[in-house]
């Protein structure tokens, strides 16, 4: 098998890469450009709302550079989890940008789009058939949860992307895809060892985060017969055994086992070897195909509408009394708006705003930043309740009060801000499928 080089321009499409790094990387003769554009990491909003994680401006700018480079070299460009969550509207939005690029740059190529939306009825059938397994959500997927789900996608493996390559695609815009698979698809399609290609995908999908100094920048990986070699695009960076080994722990629970659609990879026998100053060779991944092929579902449901108020508290007497004040205004707001149901959360920065009940320290702070957050069934109610609480707090009287003219320093008028719909994860479960491609239709367009 000939060596196959994958160029990954950045960790998330739209987050940038160096022009010099791309030019140098392209000069090394990659066989494909592959990049990930999303994850659950930014939260459930992008899945639920269909809004893009990164602006059209940034996506178009970077896709233009990549498609031009790909067309110039005659190699495919593959983008996975487009739009941030890979939902249908996000695939279409990105595809539209690709069409604009083709027109504006006067380029002709075959575009493949791959959808990853799962019909709710399909998932319900799987629930009824007992073909859903909880992944980490801690509770089973139910028909009720699916009825509440507004967007449901599944992570594709490399197979649908390989199907698009079989179909002659020059640019692949894929919905939700396992990050590793986006990078691994082309090498596997060309005959590389899937274990090595997928392990390389896991490291490469974050771009030059596995290099030092780390950055959102170009990283290259070359799959050989029995190993793969990593190298950053920019000569200002290097791959070291330490940077690569450290990165192989990042954002995952089990460093020795990597599960993906239809497979499990054992990394316990891996070795990292420094090659020259800037390259690292990786060996030893072992792949086992699972008896049944499962894909990971990701669903989001509407949790309500949110309004917030932001305020500072400087008075030490207020800060000392704060817990009791918050408990009281919350209780009064819930009573005032009953029977409507409200979720009221106080983020007390300077207290436990970041870690909540996991915060072990209790020292009193000089200054507190308070975010009052209300989620309700509609925006008007959320706004009304948020203002009721911020107003009640502003003029709250408590024992020992020294300043009777107001407890909150608001940086803004209006004090209460409407954040719109709020989404929560409703599905994070595995679903059994008959074939790796059945849920992920490929469409072609000649541009």
């Amino acid at each position: 098998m000939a060596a196959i080089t994958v160029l990954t321009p950045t960790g998330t499409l739209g987050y940038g890469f160096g022009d010099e790094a791309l030019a140098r990387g392209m000069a090394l003769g990659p066989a494909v450009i592959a990049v990930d554009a999303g994850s659950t990491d930014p939260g459930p909003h992008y899945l639920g709302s269909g809004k893009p994680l990164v602006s059209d401006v940034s996506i178009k700018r970077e896709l233009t550079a990549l498609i031009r480079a790909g067309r110039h070299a005659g190699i495919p460009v593959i983008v996975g989890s487009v739009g941030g969550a890979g939902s249908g509207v996000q695939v279409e939005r990105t595809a539209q940008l690709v069409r604009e690029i083709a027109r504006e740059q006067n380029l002709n190529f075959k575009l493949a789009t791959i959808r990853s939306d799962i019909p709710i009825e399909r998932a319900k059938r799987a629930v009824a058939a007992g073909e859903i397994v909880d992944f980490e959500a801690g509770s089973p997927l139910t028909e009720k949860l699916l009825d509440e789900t507004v967007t449901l996608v599944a992570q594709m493996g490399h197979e649908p992307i390989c199907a698009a390559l079989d179909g002659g695609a020059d640019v692949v815009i894929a919905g939700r895809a396992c990050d590793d698979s986006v990078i691994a698809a082309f090498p596997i399609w060309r005959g590389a060892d899937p274990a090595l290609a997928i392990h390389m995908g896991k490291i490469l999908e974050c771009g030059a985060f596995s290099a030092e100094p780390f950055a959102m920048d170009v990283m290259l990986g070359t799959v050989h017969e029995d190993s793969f070699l990593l190298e950053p695009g920019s000569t200002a960076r290097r791959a070291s055994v330490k940077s690569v080994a450290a990165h192989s722990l990042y954002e995952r629970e089990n460093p020795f086992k990597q599960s993906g659609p239809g497979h499990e990879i054992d990394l316990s026998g891996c070795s990292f070897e420094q090659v020259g100053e800037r390259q690292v060779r990786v060996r030893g991944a072992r792949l086992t195909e699972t008896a049944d092929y499962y894909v990971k579902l990701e669903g989001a449901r509407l949790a309500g509408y949110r309004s917030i108020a932001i305020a500072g508290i400087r008075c030490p007497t207020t800060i000392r009394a704060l817990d009791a004040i918050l408990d009281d205004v919350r209780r009064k707001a819930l009573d005032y708006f009953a029977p409507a149901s409200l979720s009221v959360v106080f983020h007390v920065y300077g207290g436990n705003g970041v870690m909540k009940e996991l915060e072990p320290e209790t020292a009193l702070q000089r200054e507190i930043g308070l975010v009052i957050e209300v989620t309700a069934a509609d925006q008007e109610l959320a706004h009304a309740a948020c203002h009721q609480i911020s107003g009640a707090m502003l003029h709250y009287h408590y024992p020992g009060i020294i300043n009777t003219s107001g407890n909150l320093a608001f940086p803004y008028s209006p004090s209460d801000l409407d954040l719109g719909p709020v989404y929560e994860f409703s599905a994070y479960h595995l679903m059994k499928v008959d074939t790796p491609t059945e849920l992920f239709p490929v469409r072609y367009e000649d541009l």
Partner: protein
Amino acid sequence: MNTRPLKDLADIVRSKNAGPYRITFDILFKDKARYEAVRATGAISAESVAKAYGIGVSQVSSFFEIDMANAIKITIKRPRAQGSSGDGDMYGCQHHVPLMLIDVPME
């Protein structure tokens, strides 16, 4: 014997989401000697991490010592799902402080 906080002995102490329902902690050491010295004290364990965050050991979902990376990795279950009401850290990347302040017996 004296103690030193983990942050003085480790090169990197970090936290991050591992999916919407977990926060994973990585402790990376400069070299094998430092990694083995800290590991040998047993000061970093599922029990000590649970204590540092005021949670039960059952909320610690895994604990790994990774020789090839001179690293220790601990993962906990999030008290609430990422992005759900009350979550204050969407990326889970600011949860490392109680861990880095754990005292390690060391001269």
